[in-house]
């Protein structure tokens, strides 16, 4: 980069280490921090002579990144954000940037997109002379020089370019020598620089660039009070090279070889040598890197004399990239199944119970066996027709890529229990010289982590069932009035062609109010015949057959029925609901076959068995020890029914619509124990919520579904799954019964160590899902994964997966609300997060003298944020007044089933500004990339925003939005009350564009979207964003800050 900078032609390389090396070793870097900081004192004028000699070095690839100014926040804040990286190498080494000499590269500006960037052009190495703020364009690099003045920042900057990063990191690791900031060779310049302004930016600039691989760095940045001495000094020390940041394994593995750069700096010091090695060879030298742990830190102290807390909200880490799966781990074990299917809370399994107990986060896995695979990555199907399915004789593990063959291919060793099995004759293949089977490439089950076996007859208790759907529809007055009946009938009708399993699909309908209505759909009829049963105490089925009919044969009758359904009950004045008896009737109809029962429920069950009463009216109960009882099913009838449903392979999906209390807590158990789902539309009005219902119901009916399934997770010796969390019922200690599964369901399990010490190198997990596909085939889907056993707590943290942890936390917390107060459930999460981070801090803080700041591993940088978001999520938020009881319960049931990605999106929804796009100044796909942080600060009253949590869109019209836009989007009535508006496509470009945006993410997200409009007219802004984690962050610090 140096070359690029015209301005700094003069850069000199240092004779790398030499100058520094010895003498100052301890103080090599002065962090730019000092500059930043107001403290002048920090700077020492040029240190001893040693530094002086600075041979002109040119290269500075390391350094030089320029951050484009855009994001930059005015320094005026008084705090600078900085990232502290622990300085890896011992002080002695002067890590000088020099080694870094990378090729000069210019970093593309985009990388810096991060918010707080300063145009920090300077790389440290540069002659101090540089104008503090550089025009964004030029990339500066004067790496070699880096030693000097601002060594610290430089490393970071490097991060921006991948290559550089690596090199930089390794080499860069700076000596933490925090205490003695020394001024770089060009001390003069710096000191001179005004504390805040220019210098400041510099420091920042460097930090900002997000590593590509990584989520943005910014988050890491810490707000720092310039004035504080403590923090200040710590910074110095703190700045480490970014190296640690390489996510996960990188450190251990060593840096990738960097394009050969001549070691600019002579390897004088130890340090230098290390560096050389790293970059030159890329050896994974773990030892030398002992210090290079990847953690980031945040300083939290407040500035004396200021009113602010020391926390700069803009500097907090934010998951604007969405869920980032730990990729490096997948690369390490290419034969593992994709993280779509199985995610471990940490991929490093602790080798002893004592280690496990120091890891305060739950140890476990989140499994989504049928996750949707992108095109080209479908799970291969294997048919073992001739040999039978190959499984371990002892532990019943399915054959997988990690089994090893022995005895010339005649035996295979199970990777889970180490048992030596015979290879069946038909499956035999010779081994080549390296012990691999010669037919390996034709055997997907031996190369892929996920495969599907066609199951032979021994895996069936009965012939595979056809997909069958029974609709149990409330026909009382409120159902008719709200328009629910109409929307449901229309939607079902439109989905008939897309129901899975044609032509075997079975379908049936039952409606109920104070009586139960059955419909004879026999194919020979022209019109369905309605039969009414009013004896609720002794339910019987009026017809043995023809209530559940083959869809393709009776299609005409079904169509006729759905057409007439809304009008059939038009004049109904019935306010009663015989829900319990109707449920029993549905059970009797379905018990022969199983299938899916969709319940549309509008009125609190009031007749017959399963009658429910109004609960939750008594405000005095809230906040007492009895509060949780409101979240538990009141009547054991529903639990019993749910158990029976599961036994007969019936899955229940509940759609509840009531505008009054409808006891979702009781009704939801039906879905909970049958692997179903709860959809809740409070105060349903077809004009407002119709679209959402249509979308959700369509997806429910048409997504690929697996029937009569059971799932088991096996794992290697020494570890055991102890508890399972999600919507399902356990059939035996480890067998999960799932009458129906689809891609939107995930299940979590907790692990525990059975033995005090694990002696194996790695632990294997195998998820096996035995199911009937819609096409009527019995299949076994097998996902296999390997995870290393580690002896080091730091390694566990490095391999942690925030998404899985949060998913498990949310399930534990929701379960906890069923037996404790909300507050206790929230506290439990916070406590565990705090404990986990404190443990991590104890690992590193002392050795790096990072007192007064929070440090956290890269892998968990979003944990506090998501933890906070979780505490503010619907099931856990606030007290009784904050969320309706029904809504809380429904959200709880929903979150218990969500896959990791959807959960994270729900917890931290995306927010886009779209008015620019509508005005055609910006490209469509750019918008989706620009997620905004969820703070009220990101809302501008002249903007139009879309807020998307995966379940609904909220469109926010700023108060001073151009009226033209609103008119185009909403039609002529735009000035009316926004909360009542419906958004539909109007005949103009702008409106079409908006609708296109709304559809696009809907596809990406895969779950449903409803349309709500709000405006800030009535001060609703706060309401919308109320549960967004970041909002109000100023007044309330994230839990973790406690430390």
């Amino acid at each position: 980069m140096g070359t690029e900078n015209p301005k700094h032609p003069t850069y000199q390389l240092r004779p790398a280490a030499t100058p520094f090396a010895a003498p100052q070793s301890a103080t090599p870097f002065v962090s730019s921090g000092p500059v930043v900081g107001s403290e002048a004192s920090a700077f020492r004028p040029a240190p001893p002579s040693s530094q002086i000699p600075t041979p002109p070095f040119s290269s500075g690839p390391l350094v030089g990144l320029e951050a484009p100014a855009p994001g930059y926040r005015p320094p005026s804040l008084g705090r600078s954000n900085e990232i502290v990286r622990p300085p890896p190498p011992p002080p002695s080494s002067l890590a000088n940037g020099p080694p870094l000499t990378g090729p000069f590269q210019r970093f593309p500006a985009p990388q810096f997109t991060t918010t707080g960037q300063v145009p920090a052009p300077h790389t440290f190495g540069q002659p101090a002379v540089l104008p503090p703020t550089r025009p964004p364009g030029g990339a500066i690099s004067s790496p070699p020089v880096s030693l000097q003045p601002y060594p610290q920042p430089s490393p970071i900057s490097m991060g921006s370019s991948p290559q550089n990063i690596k090199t930089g990191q390794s080499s860069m690791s700076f000596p933490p020598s925090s205490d003695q900031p020394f001024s770089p060779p060009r001390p003069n310049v710096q000191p001179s620089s005004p504390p805040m302004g220019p210098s400041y930016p510099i420091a920042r600039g460097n930090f900002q660039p997000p590593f590509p691989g990584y989520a943005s760095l910014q988050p890491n940045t810490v707000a720092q009070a310039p004035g504080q001495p403590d923090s200040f000094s710590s910074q110095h020390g703190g700045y480490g090279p970014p190296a640690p940041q390489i996510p996960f394994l990188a450190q251990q593995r060593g840096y990738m070889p960097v394009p050969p750069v001549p070691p600019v700096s002579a390897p004088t010091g130890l340090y230098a040598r290390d560096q050389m090695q790293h970059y030159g060879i890329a050896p994974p030298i773990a030892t030398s890197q002992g210090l290079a742990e990847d953690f980031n830190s945040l300083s939290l102290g407040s500035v004396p004399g200021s009113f602010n807390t020391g926390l700069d909200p803009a500097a907090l880490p934010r998951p604007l990239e969405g869920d980032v799966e730990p990729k490096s781990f997948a690369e390490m074990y290419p034969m593992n199944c994709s993280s779509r299917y199985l995610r471990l809370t940490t991929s490093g399994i602790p080798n002893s119970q004592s280690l496990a107990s120091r890891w305060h986060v739950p140890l476990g896995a989140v499994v989504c066996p049928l996750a949707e695979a992108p095109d080209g990555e479908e799970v291969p199907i294997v048919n073992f027709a001739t040999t039978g399915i190959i499984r371990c004789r002892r532990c019943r593990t399915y054959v997988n890529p990690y089994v090893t063959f022995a005895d010339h291919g005649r035996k295979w060793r199970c990777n889970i229990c180490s048992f030596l099995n015979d290879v069946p004759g038909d499956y035999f293949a010779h081994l080549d010289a390296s012990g691999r089977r010669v037919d390996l490439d034709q055997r997907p089950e031996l190369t892929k982590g996920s495969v599907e076996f066609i199951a032979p007859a021994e895996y069936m208790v009965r012939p595979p069932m056809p997909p069958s759907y029974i609709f149990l529809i409330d026909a009382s007055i409120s159902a008719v009035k709200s328009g629910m009946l109409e929307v449901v009938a229309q939607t079902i009708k439109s989905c008939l062609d897309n129901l899975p399993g044609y032509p075997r699909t079975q379908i049936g309908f039952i409606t109920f109010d104070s009586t139960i209505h059955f419909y004879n759909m026999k194919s020979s009829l022209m019109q369905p015949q309605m039969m009414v049963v009013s004896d609720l105490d002794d339910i019987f089925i009026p017809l043995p057959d023809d209530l559940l009919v083959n869809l393709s044969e009776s299609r005409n009758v079904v169509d006729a029925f759905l057409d007439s359904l809304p009008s059939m009950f038009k004049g109904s004045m019935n306010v009663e609901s015989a829900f319990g008896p109707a449920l029993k009737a549905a059970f009797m109809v379905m018990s022969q076959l199983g299938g899916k029962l969709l319940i549309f429920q509008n009125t609190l069950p009031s007749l017959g068995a399963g009658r429910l009463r109004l609960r939750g009216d008594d405000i005095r109960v809230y906040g007492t020890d009895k509060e949780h009882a409101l979240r538990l099913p009141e009547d054991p009838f529903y639990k019993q029914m749910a158990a029976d449903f599961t036994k007969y392979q019936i899955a229940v999906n509940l759609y509840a619509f009531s505008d009054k209390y409808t006891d979702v807590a009781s009704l939801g158990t039906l879905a909970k124990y049958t692997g179903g789902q709860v959809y809740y539309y409070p105060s349903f009005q077809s004009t407002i919520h119709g679209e959402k219902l249509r979308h959700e119901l369509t997806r429910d009916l048409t997504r690929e579904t697996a029937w009569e399934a059971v799932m088991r997770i096996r794992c290697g010796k020494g570890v055991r799954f102890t508890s399972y969390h999600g919507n399902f019922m356990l059939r035996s200690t480890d067998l999960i019964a799932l009458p129906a599964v689809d891609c939107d369901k995930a299940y979590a399990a907790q692990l525990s160590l059975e033995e005090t010490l694990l002696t194996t190198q790695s632990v294997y997990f195998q998820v096996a899902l035995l199911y009937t596909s819609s096409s009527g085939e019995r299949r076994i889907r097998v996902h296999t994964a390997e995870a290393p056993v580690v002896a080091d707590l730091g390694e566990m943290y490095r391999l942690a997966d925030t998404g899985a942890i949060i998913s498990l936390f949310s399930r534990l917390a929701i379960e906890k609300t069923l037996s404790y107060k909300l507050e206790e459930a929230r506290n439990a999460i916070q406590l565990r997060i705090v404990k986990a981070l404190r443990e991590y801090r104890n690992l590193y803080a002392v050795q790096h003298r990072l007192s007064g700041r929070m440090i956290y591993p890269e892998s968990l940088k979003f944990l506090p944020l998501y933890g906070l978001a979780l505490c503010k999520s619907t099931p856990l938020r606030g007290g009784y007044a904050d969320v309706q009881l029904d809504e809380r319960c429904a959200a709880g049931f929903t979150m218990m089933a969500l896959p990791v990605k959807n959960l994270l999106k729900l917890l931290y929804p995306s927010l886009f500004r779209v008015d620019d796009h509508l005005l055609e100044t910006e490209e469509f796909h750019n918008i989706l990339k620009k997620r905004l942080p969820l703070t009220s600060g990101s809302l501008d009253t002249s903007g139009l925003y879309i807020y998307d949590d995966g379940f609904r869109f909220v469109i926010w019209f700023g108060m001073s939005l151009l009226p033209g836009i609103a008119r185009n989007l909403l039609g002529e009535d735009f000035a009316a009350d926004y909360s009542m508006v419906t958004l539909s496509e109007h005949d103009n470009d702008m409106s079409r564009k908006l609708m296109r945006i709304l559809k696009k993410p809907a596809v990406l997200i895969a779950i449903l979207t409803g349309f709500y409009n709000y405006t800030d007219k009535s001060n609703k802004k706060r309401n919308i964003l109320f549960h967004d984690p970041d909002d109000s962050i100023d007044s309330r610090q994230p839990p973790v800050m406690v430390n």
Partner: protein
Amino acid sequence: MEWVLWLIFFIMNLLLMAANIYQLICLADLEADYLNPYELASRMNAVIVPEFLLHGAFCILFLVTGHWFMFLLTLLPAYYNAKKYLARQHLIDVTEVFRVLNAEKKARIFKLGFYIVFFVLVITRLAFSVINAVFDEDDDLAITKVPWYLMLWFALEAMPR
């Protein structure tokens, strides 16, 4: 005829122990996957309420026959049972069996231990009442006047060390 009374106590105690052991076996079977939760629930739930009733009768019988100390002892499990019953948590919940498995087992093991202690008490009392009865029939030995606990003490004293 006191021994008849003690015989009744003895039989009741045996039944209670049997009920508990049966439940423990069911739970163990479930764990070993010999039983599925549905069968387990139907089997255990069939036993639980009769067991509670029997224990109640056991308890009240002590009260009405004036065995204060024994009554107080039986009050502990009776209280536990009543509490569970009133909270409607006495029956096994099919859907959540595995979650409560360990707690249920522990509770039953404690109860079983309790009944074993009772068993010892009841059987000694039974033995002494039988002895008393036998001696009563034979002649008027002074032994009838000796309270049972003194007899027990004498018996222990007489044992070879």
